[in-house]
């Protein structure tokens, strides 16, 4: 049987990297940015956070934090849809899911660029 070239390793690596970020970093930000700051457990002013986000290294960090989990979502969601029986729609589903993640990546770059 002839082997078919596949782009799966590329998407899988992004999925795997996104999973690591989602598992290790996202909970920290949920705690800090989602609970600690709004509930007043700690006080970081908006101006200070914005200044922090303006640093190139922090921008890079934010890019990784936001963009990679999008690919984790895209890969997983694509597989969920396929497993639910939409197997005949594989190509449009893949385009929609990964396209969404790419659009999110571009949007992230655009927002970070503007800070």
């Amino acid at each position, binding site marked *: *049987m002839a*082997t078919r070239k596949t782009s*799966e*390793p590329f998407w899988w690596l992004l999925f795997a990297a996104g999973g690591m970020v989602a598992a290790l970093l996202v909970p920290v930000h949920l705690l800090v940015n989602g609970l600690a700051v709004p509930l007043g457990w700690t006080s970081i002013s908006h101006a200070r956070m914005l200044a922090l986000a303006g640093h190139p290294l922090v921008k890079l960090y934010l890019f990784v934090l936001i963009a990679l989990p999008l690919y984790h979502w895209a890969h997983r969601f694509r*597989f969920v849809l396929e*497993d639910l029986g939409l*197997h005949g729609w594989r190509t449009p589903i893949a385009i929609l899911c990964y396209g969404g993640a790419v659009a999110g990546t571009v949007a992230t770059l655009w927002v970070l660029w503007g800070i």
Partner: protein
Amino acid sequence: MSDATITLEVTRYRPGHDREPHPQSFEVPFQKDWVVLDALNHIKDRIDGTLSYRWSCRMGVCGSCGMMVNGVPKLTCAAFLRDYRPGPIRVEPLANFPVIRDLVIALDDFMEKLRRVKPWIIRAEEKPVSEGEYRQTPAQLETYKQFSMCINCMLCYAACPVYGLAPAFVGPAAIALAYRYNLDSRDEGYRLREPVMSDAVGVWECTFVGECSVVCPKGVDPAAAIQRSKLAGATDWLLSMVMPWGGRR
């Protein structure tokens, strides 16, 4: 023993006779030490000799008696009637496979895939017998041992929704066995198995549902074999991108 009974709803299909598979009910004696296979043997011996199914060792070694019991892939020699009281117990042929007759499914697809992954020790060069055996330490054995417990019962294929939707998928048991030989310190066949493993219908078809590992009667973890093979495949892919002139592990 009491004269209690339990009902089995067994799928019947006789090609050329039945248009499609249909259930038939049989009442069998309930014995607390009976498994579903004992009940099927009772039906064949005492009630209806035309019932067809595969079995051999009745002790979880041969892997022939896999069927769907109440919708779950099971070795019927290890599925006790007492766990399904008061019944009825639905006994159907393994899901995702074509049915030949009654509870007998066609194994050709699995056998072909099994051969395709070359599940045997491959050496670049065989050493002569006079030089002795290929030695292995207990630690080297331990790395692949659990994957070598596979008995080819195909319960994992019946449990895999991906195989149901995309029958070209090489599938859990075949990949687990390929991985078993890839891990074997005596084996040198990784590159020969790679085209099958890294194919679009190889490890990449798996959506990590994980049911294969749940239903395995021998404690093999095919899902782990597939995910680890994905990591190996992705590493190969990355190296071939960075070093197109031959970056291979």
